[in-house]
């Protein structure tokens, strides 16, 4: 019946959307986890990624999947520069001082981008067809976004958990002074984590364009910042893959609950799905105050 069919196709789209939400949050979590910096300028970096995808496609016809590599490289370079110029000097300052700095940096990037790219909405169209599955049509571009999100998240997970440098990052998080006595160059770990976090964020901006190819605009990031924050908490904040996992759940809730909320008369079900995700967030935190995958 139609109800079930719609529910299933909504969940399918929710999962795809969620994977990109998740990826768009990982960088935020990484930076918070290691440096305790709340990157309120998050969205600006997503915007940079979106523009990279756009220009690569328009100027050279390079498909977004290839641009991912460029995006992470550019992102890491920007991240490193910001770290060296600003963040490094605020490592020992009160936590919120860096929030202010990231706020200013976010504004700066947006305004700078506006000077060179203008405030217009732009977009591109990468058409590679689609497939009919589970009662609905899904374009290949979205499936690719889905698959690459998962691959990237997995790579980050392995890097973090299994490599020595990944473990060093954790050690620095735990105790900076202790890490120095082990011979870990704390400043390098910070620089690396910060630039990787920005790199991942810029990269996720590329994948975002597979969803809203024409929504590319210098101010497009705000929406994602907000969502990423919520997802980050749901996932346990300091844990990048927790963020990924939570993004997934978030996408499912947002899209999945639509069909059910539509049964209530006299309301706007799509708006209520957002309300519901906030409620779910609060409930999760009530039961498990450190988020779904948070430590103790």
């Amino acid at each position, binding site marked *: 019946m139609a109800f079930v069919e719609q529910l299933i196709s909504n969940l399918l789209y929710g999962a795809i959307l969620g994977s990109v939400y998740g990826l768009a949050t990982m960088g935020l979590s990484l930076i918070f986890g290691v440096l305790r910096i709340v990157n309120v300028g998050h969205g600006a970096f997503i915007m940079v990624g979106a523009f990279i995808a756009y220009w690569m496609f328009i100027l050279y016809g390079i498909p977004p999947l290839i641009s991912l590599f460029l995006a992470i490289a550019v992102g890491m370079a920007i991240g490193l520069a910001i770290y060296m110029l600003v963040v490094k000097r605020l490592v020992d300052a009160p936590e919120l001082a860096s929030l202010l700095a990231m706020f200013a940096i976010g504004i700066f990037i947006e305004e700078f981008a506006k000077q060179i790219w203008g405030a217009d909405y732009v977009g591109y169209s990468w058409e590679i067809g689609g497939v009919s599955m589970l009662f609905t049509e899904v374009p290949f571009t979205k499936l690719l976004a889905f698959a690459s999100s998962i691959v990237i998240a997995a790579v980050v997970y392995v890097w973090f958990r299994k490599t*020595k440098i990944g*473990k*060093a990052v*954790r*050690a620095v998080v*735990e*105790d900076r*002074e*202790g*890490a*120095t*006595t*082990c*011979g*870990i*160059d*704390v*400043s390098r770990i910070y620089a690396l984590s910060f630039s990787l976090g920005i790199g991942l964020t810029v990269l996720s901006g590329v994948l975002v364009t597979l969803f809203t190819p024409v929504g590319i605009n210098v101010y497009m990031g705000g929406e994602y910042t907000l969502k990423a924050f919520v997802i980050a908490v749901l996932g346990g904040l300091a844990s990048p893959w927790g963020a990924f996992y939570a993004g997934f759940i978030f996408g499912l809730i947002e899209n999945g609950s639509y069909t059910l909320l539509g049964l209530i008369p006299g309301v706007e079900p799509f708006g209520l799905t957002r309300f519901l995700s906030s409620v779910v967030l609060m409930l999760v935190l009530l039961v498990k105050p450190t988020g779904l995958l948070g*430590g103790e």
Partner: protein
Amino acid sequence: MLNVKDLQSGYGEMQVLWDIDLEVKEKSITVILGPNGAGKSTTLKTIFGTLKPWNGRIEYIGQDITFLPPHKKVELGMTLVPEGRHLFSNMTVKDNLYMGAYLKRAEERFEDSLELVYSLFPRLKERESQKAGTLSGGEQQMLAIARALMTSPNLILMDEPSQGLAPKLVKEVFETILKLKDEGLTILLVEQNVFASLEISDYAYILHEGKIAFGGTVDEVKESEEVKRAYLGV
């Protein structure tokens, strides 16, 4: 092995150390004694590089290391067991030890170091997969020493390693330090436990209000009633 000349340092605007001269001989135990607040910890922190020296020169195995960052010093075989332990609280005991062997040089000797550490502190082996933050105070102190050993150092700076340990363990820690010396390590120790540390040390410095008030062999300290009365309160 370690040669410190005219070292000055402090926090913010406040100078704590004034022209510190000291020397640590290879394969010896050198202890720095002195009242609280004299600047003992500050000396160790400045030598290790957690604090930037204001002035002076630090030489280690013939190299000028005055302004090297700490991790470079670890690479050269120096490490610090800091006051307050600074363990990775949410990581397991094993992972803490693993992090100790972070540098390539140490990683190559991981197995040997681990064996040494577990033989010195069998209790750590029992608690291998417990999170460091939940260890008792004494266990944490053992882990801090053990982690330092994992860097396979030549010179260990230790800031009050016996603090907070049960009497039986205090004895063990001092014995361990002696054993480490036998293993060929050099130790620069800061201690409050005057008697026990003089027992095991070869050389002693007495720090008073940020200046070296006395330096010499342990026997010299023991013989000088004046030093003992004036600076050690015994």
